[in-house]
């Protein structure tokens, strides 16, 4: 009985599972973002997205890793992600953000392939510095390019 209750309690967080990825480009420059994630068939950073182009002042949102199976920029090499097992099994790991020249930021969560949460790059958008930040709030991942 007790085991059952514990199992039930453990399963509760999954019901309102929140693990979306929200990306914001608040700079005045276009950026290209590559997203890294994992699921039951792919180890940490084993899922690599195609190139997501974000114009100045654009944002993007992805509900879960499987969203990228059917939504641009998709996963590279025909990779397919699954949400099987819940957020204990799958998750967003990090991102590579570049503008093709000065800006070259690899950031992400602790324990990922890019375990650095914040990077500032001087003169990355004209003479403006660009800060790239990865943070997790309420189970959701936020990638802010400021």
């Amino acid at each position, binding site marked *: 009985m007790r085991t059952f209750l514990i199992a039930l309690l453990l399963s509760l967080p999954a019901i309102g599972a929140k693990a979306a990825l929200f*990306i*914001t480009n608040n700079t005045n420059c276009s950026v290209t973002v590559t997203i890294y994630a994992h699921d039951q068939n792919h180890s940490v950073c084993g899922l690599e997205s195609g190139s997501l182009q974000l114009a100045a002042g654009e944002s993007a949102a992805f509900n879960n890793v499987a969203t990228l199976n059917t939504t641009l920029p998709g996963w590279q090499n025909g990779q397919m992600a699954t949400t099987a097992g819940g957020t204990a099994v799958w998750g967003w790991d990090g991102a590579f953000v570049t503008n093709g020249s000065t800006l070259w930021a690899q950031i992400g969560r602790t324990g990922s392939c890019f375990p650095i949460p914040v990077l500032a790059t001087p003169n990355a958008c004209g003479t403006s510095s660009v800060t790239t930040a990865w943070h997790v709030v*309420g189970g959701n991942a936020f990638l802010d390019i400021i």
Partner: protein
Amino acid sequence: MRKLFTAALLFLLAPAARAALFINNTSKCTVQVRVYAHSEKGKACELESKIMTIPSMGTMAFNNAGQVAENPGWEKGMTVAGDPKAAVWDALGFHNGTSTLKVGTGCATVTTGVVKDACGADLNVKWTIAGRNILVELYN
């Protein structure tokens, strides 16, 4: 030490931030919502968006209120006055066909609530400030 520095850096970034609005529907049902905002020098909720339909496991992302004009558009030909990036998000209204639940600030009195969705299930609608962004989550 590094964590502290990171936290401090994020904190410093916050005041100058122009917030994005993200809507995340992790419920099992399609939802219909409106967003409310105001121009830099305007009054709370003076801008009302048209209804937008978000499928189960669907998301919406607005970098700034100016983007609402493109999709789904503002009601009655409303427009953001001044810099769209300086406009402020006020609330989100969820409609289930018979009643409305409004969460947020300004014209909303609650930031979270529960209401029946169009599929007959209890739907949580939650408005939170996540770092520099505003996040509205809809979930069963």
